[in-house]
């Protein structure tokens, strides 16, 4: 299954234009249907979603050679074992990469500023699993 991000964004009320990099403000109003007898006007029942502040992604690395990658579990059952397999994969296939495992505080959705600071200070990149 592959999800069309443009369709998905539209369903969220977000203009797909964000994928093209241009801030967008609203979508075109629905065009009126052809004139017919018995046509009625109704009010839009939607609430007001918050403004979305676009966050630029962090610059990528030229390569992973010799880098330290944090393997971060969000605490979902089995994520620790899965990340351990990734550590094993790097050891076998990219031995110059150092991996460090950490369990993120705050559960699936919470922030862990302490861990973020550690990764920024000591690491080069992060792999997180399994988010949902």
């Amino acid at each position, binding site marked *: *299954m592959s999800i069309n*991000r443009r369709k*998905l*964004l539209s*369903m*969220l*009320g*977000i*203009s797909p234009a*964000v*994928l093209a*990099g241009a801030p967008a*403000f*609203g979508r075109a109003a*629905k065009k*009126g*249907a052809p004139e017919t007898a*018995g*046509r*009625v*006007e*109704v*009010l*839009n*029942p*939607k*609430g*007001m*979603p*918050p403004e*979305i*502040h*676009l*966050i*630029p*992604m962090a610059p*990528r*690395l030229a390569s992973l050679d010799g880098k330290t*990658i*944090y393997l971060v579990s969000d605490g979902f*059952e*089995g994520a620790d*074992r899965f990340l351990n*397999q*990734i550590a094993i*994969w790097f050891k076998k*296939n990219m031995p110059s990469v150092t991996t460090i495992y950490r369990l993120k505080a705050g*559960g*699936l*959705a919470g922030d862990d500023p302490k861990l973020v600071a550690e990764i*920024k200070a000591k*690491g*080069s*990149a*992060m*792999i997180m*699993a*399994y*988010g*949902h």
Partner: protein
Amino acid sequence: MGVPTAAIVTIAFEELAKSNAASRGMPGERICFTPHPMTNKTDAEMYQVLLGKDPVTGKPFMKEVIDALTVPLTPAEKVTGSVRPSTGPATYSDTPENLQRFFADNNMTDFQPIILPTEDKVEAMLKGTSHSPEEIVGKMSAGIPSAFPAWSFNVRQVAINAVMAGARPEFFPAILAIASTGQTAIFSSTSSFARMAVVNGPFRDKIRMNYGIGALGPFNDANATIGRAWTILSKNLAGAGLPGMTYLGTTGTNFNYNNMCCAETENALPDGWEPLHVRHGFKPTDSTVTLFTGWSLTNVCYFGLPYHEMITHWLTHYFSTSNFSAVLVLDPTVAADIKRHGFDSPDAFRDYLVKNAKTPAWLYWQRRDKEMAQAKQGVEPFASYLKMGPDADIPVSRFEPRRFPGMPPNAPLPNTIEMFVMGGGTNTYWLGGDFRYVVTTSIDKWV
């Protein structure tokens, strides 16, 4: 965060991951997908996933991970600024049939026909409250607020949804009260949450709610439409209930159609028993709505034991596969029997249940490796518990008040067992479910 990141998500949550990234400001977030589920795989099977392909892109999985960290950013991935999401024009115009279809196709209904929210119907609904149509009522999130940004809404927008649900203007204060709590009726979780709304105080009779025969059934317009409005407004005022994106309940629940909206049978409470809202700090003359969250209900009638004993056994045994908080809905005849056995208040009955419910041995020893080791070394009380055998009821209650995940550290411990009285007295039935108390809020404030 400033660190190159590859997020790994199982394929079942593709829509959720992408939509969540977009609504939180990173629509192009680099996400790598694995098959689903992963939790039940062996280590060797997990390693095979790494050697396989990303089920979304069809590319080798680990290459996707490495690319996510090393392929230079596109211009779109570097964009800053703000986006004000649009939720469409202020009005729609078409034939009634087409509008019914349009509202359903855009997930703005519960997929049953709605009352079309015309200006005159919404104006009539707004007469049900003294509050300004433009007053902000509150904010509501589709799930965990840190994951699903909360939407805000005003009185007029709640009124539009109330019209759609078929509510009458006189019901509107209860709907505003529910909306003001910020609690969605369709909370995003894989576990298919249900909700319950219980009205107390004079407002129940003012709008002729049903708290007698069939109060939880389709026999009263106030019960039916207030509960229905909660689901419809959750979809439209919080963006909740988009399957795969803001709703993930694997089976879903029929309770979401009207959220078990009912009222307490206050006129048939046993002497000395205070109504639900009074036990939560309100006066008897206040009108309130109390919200519960949970999953399921059991309908019980059993004549072999007094009810207080029967319910204790139910908590020990039937409830052993459920969570550790319960809500009891007692028919007035059952409440009267409990009172007759010496329980002068719901709190006294709750304390008895908390103290006397036990834990089946099979459940007790799950994830208690340390206690099991101590038991085998003769350390009490574990040694005695172990001697009781695998079919015993261990005298440890699972209903001692405890903190729930996400509770503020200074918040008082919530009751693990709540109850209210409701029903027509046609037989001695009671309902028990794995629900827990969320909040009681004023309806009077919204009149």
